[in-house]
């Protein structure tokens, strides 16, 4: 596991532009969309998310936040799913231009 911590330093090699582009999903606002770059966290959590379709390169649309601002409803691979905000923070995204929904 430790080994993959190096990933962050690897990314640094690609220069700051890419790092700037990585935004935690939790910082997305309603109606925004982006593409998954990386899912961080412990094995079980990452695996579960991956199985539910949170794969690198998958587009995610932020449908809405719950009335109390947590959790957040997302559209992934054509279905609706909710994640707690603290969990969404572990999904690193690359923002996409706004498109008509």
């Amino acid at each position, binding site marked *: 596991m430790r080994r993959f911590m190096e990933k962050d330093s690897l990314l640094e090699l690609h220069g700051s532009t890419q790092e700037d582009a990585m935004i935690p999903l939790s910082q997305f606002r309603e109606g925004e969309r982006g593409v998954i770059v990386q899912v961080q966290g412990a094995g079980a959590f*990452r695996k*579960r*998310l991956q199985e539910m*379709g949170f794969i690198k390169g998958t587009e995610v649309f932020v449908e809405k936040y719950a009335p109390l601002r947590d959790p957040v*409803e997302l559209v992934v691979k054509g279905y609706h799913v909710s994640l707690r905000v603290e969990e969404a923070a572990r999904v690193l995204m690359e923002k996409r231009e706004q498109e008509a929904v």
Partner: protein
Amino acid sequence: MTRETITVALAGNPNSGKTTVFNHITGTRQHVGNWPGVTVEKKEGVIQHNGHRLRVVDLPGTYSLTAYSVEEIVARRFLVDEKPDVVVDIVDASNLERNLYLATQLIELGVKLILALNMADMAEARGHHIDADKLGALLGVPVVFTVGTRNQGIKDLLNKVVEVAEDRDTVSRHIHIAYGRELEREIKKVQDVIWQDPSIGRRYSTRWLAVKLLENDGAIKDWVRALEEIGSRILAQAETSRARLADIYRDDTEMVLTDQRYGFISGALKEVLRVSAESKFDLSRQVDLILTNRLMGIPIFIFFIWAMFQLTFTLGAYPVGWIDAGVGWIGGLAAKVLPAGLFRDLVVDGVIAGVGSIIIFLPNILLLFFCIALFEDTGYLARAAFIMDRVMHLIGLHGKSFIPLLMGFGCNAPAIMAARTLESERDRILTILINPLMSCSARLPVYILLAGTFFGASAGNVVFSIYGLGIALAIAMGKLFRVTLFRGESAPFVMELPPYRVPTLKSLLIHMWDRSAVFLRKMGGVILIGSMVVWFLGAFPRPTLPPSAGIPGRIQTGQLSADSPEAFAKGQRSGGEGEASEGQKLRLEQSYLGRLGHLVQPVFAPLGFDWQTSVAVLSGFVAKEIVVSTLGVLYAGGTNVTEENEALRRALRASGMTSLAAYALMAFVLTYVPCLATVGAIRRETNSWKWTAFSIGYSLTLAWVVAFVIYQGGRLLRLG
């Protein structure tokens, strides 16, 4: 020619309409039980189809077979160990991509698989056109279209099941999900070691074993480790391969494999799925924008819950009244017909009252489960959890815990059963354990009696504070259990929000009936035995005094209709005021129950309870309403006293009980085991005597501690 039974397992994602398909296949011939050792519901049914006997087993709905959740472990164990003849994967056709993930795992397991593309109509409506033949050819799996809600395609599916079982299907062939060169090389290496022991290959697919080992699957590793010599060589190879792959992909191998499976799926979908201009108007989404709206979401949710409460407890009070009257009538009849004596007492006070105390809950339970089935089947339950998760997560619970906890204020027994909607066993058991702290309506009469007697004008506030105390204790206990018994990271809140659907009445009714029938069957035994034990303790040893009618240990059916205070009071009064009788009081004091009260009194003395109160608390183990009637007998000498009886209030005030002791008693009644029905529900729902005993033990301990702190603390502060 006699044919053997074909075992068919239904697999599928949650919300894929699997249960509806299962209901259509088996109809009412289904048997509901539990999977061995866990609280996951197991449903199966045996049917005849064209002269074949099919045993259909409904596996728990899962997104995967990784064995992270209990459901996945159960489903996988069944597939691997019991080797069903055919597996049907029910797939939501309008959500193919994620649903096919499970299919890839089933293919890998090497089971005989059929893909049922369910809700095919919805997929078409959304503009998803699926080339089923091509999909079948690509996956090597026959594909059938079904519309579960309209019972379409079920016959075709069953025909296909028989064909596949008899190896007559032409599409079926075993394919490999290709993982790419590097992964395939390592899979082959692990497989080579496994092949050294040919007996393994006869039991499991070696490719599947190899893939699972590369995924670092705990259960499989344990199994392999048990193989001793060959096992350690297999594991060593798997470790080497994992390390090598990690170097190449710079990620955990299990992640890479998941990635590849989704890659395979999207490759297949490119060939078989054609999406015509997706219709712009998504009704479900529009509905959801209102129901989970930032401003409206919570008020609407509260309204639905209020409506559920009203339906369950207010509307339910009518049939409860009828059943109450019916049981009373039967009891009266039996009392007339049978000759006076021990046997009559047993039948009337033990059996009829005991059984009556169960079936009196039936209308509430049927209505409550109907509402919950409605929430579940329409898809609203997931939204309720979505809205409430923020609040519940503060206590370390899941959004879905909210409804069971709230229902506890009505009646804990069905509320505990409502905890079934929680997928994670941890969350479920935690919710069950703290549920009794939600003060049910049957406890209200005790509060009314004591608060009315000792607190006069501020009685309302005092009762309210008891409810608040219950909630505070639930929060504290929830946190405590979370950091002691249920340690570790809680499962991620990855919850699907399925599209809203109009449920079918048939499936609602089956849903409702399944759960209610289980309640009656399994809990009936516990309650019947329990109430007979209390009857026995109250009735023996036989007194030498002239016998008089009724004892407080007797469960007056009128008292058990306490689902609303009004109904309770009515039921009580309809019983008529019994004349005061010193004989009854003496008789109860001399009974085992009375002696037990004296015996345990020293334990309760630090809480400010006298022996009468101790007896009342003991008898309240069956049901909280009985506390009032027992106090009535012991203090006021009458059986049919209500919480508003003035004679009892005067007697209580005269007894030397202080307002502080009364408050401690209320707190005790709030906290300890609510009633036998709840114990039955806990036993049934946790499927474990250990948890049941724990629940009883912790609530008694907590009740004692809380009452002790209140009474002794209050005395220190000179409140009493």
